[in-house]
């Protein structure tokens, strides 16, 4: 009897967690499919009575969401590829360093930058790019994003490389591989799950980043999606329908990446990674 009560309780609790997790996503999607009349009507409708895509049409035809989406995709891809490339090397190097003190120092230097929240450096970064006339530039922002993910990716990469035995590399060297070939032909294939985790992490974090982009970008044609959403909330006359549609477009890529890379992401998270 006690066992049955426990089982029922368990199912009920699991269901409650599920509902709590899903409702906000459901609600933003439903709102994005309602016309203005339905959104601002009372009593509230839990399902759209006459679903419409007018909010999405507004996003892409009146507002420039196609451009924002392209900008976001550009900085997220350049940023996460760049960070991955750089930190594959640095993570590998730290993992294979033999000098204990240098190693500790480098790891601490990584953890230190990891501790500093990105918005902390947004003013100095802005003045730095302003002094060479490179604000409002997607390349500048991409460089900043590469940097934003380097420390984290290096730490994560190191912990993955730690598990690949050195003997494997030595064998490859004896077979005549150059050091770069050792990395590209031996290490990377073995570290592929780790690399997928690092890439997904960076992509998600960069895609979601708001404050650095707000600080560095000013013209409308350069905006990323978070910046555009931010400008929506200060703009009068943007309805919750359009805003909800914008949020759905903003969330979609991260949900897709999470769905495909969930295993790797969870592995990366629990691999002793510091930030989130």
């Amino acid at each position: 009897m006690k066992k049955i009560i426990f089982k029922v309780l368990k199912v009920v609790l699991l269901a409650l967690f599920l509902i709590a997790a899903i409702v906000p996503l459901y609600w933003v999607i439903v709102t994005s499919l309602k016309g203005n009349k339905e959104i601002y009507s009372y009593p509230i409708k839990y399902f759209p009575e006459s679903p419409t895509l007018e909010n999405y049409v507004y996003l892409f035809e009146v507002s420039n969401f196609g451009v924002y989406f392209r900008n976001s995709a550009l900085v997220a891809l350049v940023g996460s590829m760049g960070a991955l490339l750089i930190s594959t090397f640095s993570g590998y190097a730290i993992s294979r360093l033999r000098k204990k003190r240098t190693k500790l120092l480098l790891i601490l230097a990584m953890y230190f930058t990891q501790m500093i929240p990105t918005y902390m450096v947004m003013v100095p970064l802005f003045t730095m790019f302003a002094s060479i006339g490179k604000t409002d530039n997607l390349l500048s922002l991409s460089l900043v994003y590469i940097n934003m993910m380097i420390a984290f990716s290096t730490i994560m990469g190191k912990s993955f490389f730690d598990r690949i035995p050195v003997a494997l590399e030595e064998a490859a060297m004896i077979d005549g591989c150059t050091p770069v070939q050792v990395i590209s032909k031996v290490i990377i294939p073995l570290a592929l799950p780790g690399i997928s985790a690092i890439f997904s992490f960076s992509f998600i974090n960069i895609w979601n980043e708001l404050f650095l982009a707000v600080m560095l970008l000013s013209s409308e044609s350069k905006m990323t999606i978070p910046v555009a959403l931010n400008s929506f909330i200060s703009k009068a006359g943007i309805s919750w329908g359009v805003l909800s549609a914008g949020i759905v477009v903003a969330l979609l890529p991260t949900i897709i990446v999470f769905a495909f890379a969930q295993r790797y992401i969870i592995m990366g998270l629990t691999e002793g990674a510091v930030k989130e």
Partner: protein
Amino acid sequence: MQRENGKYLYLIPALVFLGIFTYFPIVRGTIFAFQDYKLYNMSNIRFNGLENFKAIFTDPNFSFVQIIFNTAIWIFVSLFFQFMLGFVLALLMWKPFKGRGIYSGLVFYPWALSGFAIGLIWAWMFNGQFGLINDVLLKLHLIESNIGFLSDPKFAMISVIIINVWYGIPFFAIMILAALQSVPKELMDAAEIDGASPWKRLFSIIIPYIQPTIVSTTLLRVMWIMNFPEIIYATTGGGPSNATNILSTQMINKILKFYDYGQGSALGVIIMVILFTYAIFYLRLTSQGEENFG
């Protein structure tokens, strides 16, 4: 030896990036903290000693004591519920069941979402007029009239913390679920056969086994929550009347709303001092420095 030097070469790109885009800006930012530096008064940038700090501590509109108090509440109340609920969820998901893979995707996905977008979604759900939450509570007869969750100073902090808890549950559930794999199954089975109650099993087997994970994730999470302004920025902006203002949102407001880079940077310095103090405390407390960094 040559190979060891080659490894240092691999480090150069990463270190150059961090030097230019993190370390140098931190130094610059620290200098700004001691300057009168306002975007609308750029021709008059000059050192002003501790003026920025004085202004922050004595600001009549944004009581610093209240900001510190808010920050503490924000961190510890959020953390407590994130942890407790994450723990419960992890325990519920421990034993495999049909569809656990899909289930985990559906409850863990909030982890991947942007804090800013989540703030916006909940701002709409908490809306005082057309909000879903008011409507549900009214229908359940739990409230008699709509509540201005985000506009009423009495409710604002609770509301933003609820959002933060919702956002943080997956993180703890993922971490604890992974740690639970280290609890030996035979031990659990034996305890069950011996008739140990679920509580007893929880406190004398499960918790001792996963304690290192609990300690390190909660301690690290403190820093993370402290530096997570997106939700508050998207919902209340720190208002109404300073009720939800925390250190990080105040810093962002100073920069993005008041264009006062001097005071913003000074707040940054204050945050960094707190972070360092805390990091040292963390390393001492876990005393696994060697292990983690080796």
